[in-house]
């Protein structure tokens, strides 16, 4: 197996203010599929082409934002190795094991907090519930998809202060590759880092801001620009709070639209982007070109896009 270690972002757990409104948003407008509810009232969802049991977890709370993000690793041996490596690195805090079964159909998870204040977890096992089609002579998509119907949960963008140690953790300990970065000022301070564990333009990205554990967006993959435009139609059709788009990113080259769930958590659906092999040179943007880097068509910094987080 050529892709080893951390395989992909496996789930994102979000706090919502109103569960009923959130379920409507994530299942009817976005078109995710509900796969379980547990006795704590959490709701588990997945995108149609994900085989694993869930990729989004919703929990009703008195604030919005992200509880944690989970990463699937290739084996239990890798899980144990990473747990040890993370502990020895001293780059994360609040290390703990979450028992198997705490998430439905999911093995034990190793949990830690990054220096940017984000709770992350690694796990090796999650039940395969399939994508609604046989694996022998399949179709290309199942019947009955609703709404935007992205094929998978793709990445998160997060805000926090100590970007340096978080980059170190992801790159040196977890084996991620830096694909793009934004630098600022005469010291060329890295203010944003895009990192991948696979060959996507990013599996997670961070922006350096004076806060801990803040959530900018969770993103889901669409097939093409036409589907991004269709998502825009659905956003108006359903009176969803629009942030910005449809437009294009300079960084990652994705075609994108941003909107908010009913509790103010930002969602993105996007298509496109390039393939990044680990030997691809890092792309660097300077902060005076940040407008074009973020929104390639507008070429302007958008205050709300950069400032509004949960």
């Amino acid at each position: 197996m050529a892709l080893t270690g951390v395989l992909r972002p496996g789930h994102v757990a979000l706090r919502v203010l109103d569960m009923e409104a959130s379920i409507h948003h994530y299942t009817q407008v976005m078109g995710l599929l509900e796969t379980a509810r547990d006795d704590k009232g959490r709701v588990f969802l997945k995108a149609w082409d994900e085989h694993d049991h869930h990729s989004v977890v919703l929990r009703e709370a008195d604030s919005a934002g992200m509880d944690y993000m989970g990463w699937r690793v290739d084996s239990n041996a890798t899980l144990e190795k990473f747990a040890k490596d993370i502990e020895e690195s001293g780059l994360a805090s609040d290390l703990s094991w979450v028992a198997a079964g705490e998430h439905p159909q999911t093995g034990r998870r190793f949990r830690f907090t990054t220096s940017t204040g984000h709770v992350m977890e690694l796990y090796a096992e999650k039940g395969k519930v399939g994508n609604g089609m046989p694996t022998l002579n399949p179709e290309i998509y199942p019947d009955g998809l609703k709404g935007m119907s992205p094929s998978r949960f793709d990445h998160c963008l997060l805000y926090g202060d100590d970007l340096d140690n978080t980059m170190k953790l992801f790159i040196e300990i977890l084996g991620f590759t830096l694909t793009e970065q934004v630098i600022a000022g005469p010291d060329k301070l890295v203010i944003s880092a895009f990192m991948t564990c696979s060959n996507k333009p990013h599996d997670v990205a961070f922006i350096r801001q004076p806060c801990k554990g803040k959530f900018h967006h969770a993103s889901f993959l669409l097939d093409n620009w036409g589907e991004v435009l269709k998502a825009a139609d659905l956003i108006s059709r359903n009176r969803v709070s629009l942030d910005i788009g449809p437009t294009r990113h300079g960084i990652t080259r994705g075609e994108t639209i941003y909107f908010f769930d009913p509790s103010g958590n930002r969602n993105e659906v996007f298509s496109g982007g390039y393939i990044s092999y680990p030997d691809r040179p890092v792309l660097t943007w300077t902060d005076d070109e940040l407008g074009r880097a973020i929104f390639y068509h507008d070429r302007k910094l958008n205050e709300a896009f950069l400032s509004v987080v949960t």
Partner: protein
Amino acid sequence: MSHRIRIVGLADGLLAPENASFEVRGDEHLLCGMERLGRRGIPVGCRGGGCGVCKVQVVAGSYHTRKMSRDCVSSTEETQGYALACRLYPDTDLDIRVVGKMGRAFTKAGPSPSQGGDSVTAGKSPAFDMSWRN
């Protein structure tokens, strides 16, 4: 049934501009009314009660609210008329004071070179505000 909302104060104690008022319909929240009429004054963020940038204080009139993030409005503040405009439904005409601010993610720099601006000035003033690190 609609209600007239008057902005009587801005964040940082700035005085509201003349005619800073707008009508809000009975079925919409305060921020929605402002935006629908293309008016300004209250910062607009998530419109879902989660981010806090639309925070206001009601100084006169009555209203009701839907659930707001406790990270943005504490229970004490709630009793003092603080609320998020995107979760606030007027029951009468209201006078409000804008409290919320767009976080300062970046400094107001000149236009970037790719925007057709003067690249010398743009290069000199970093767009992203990192002064919090000093």
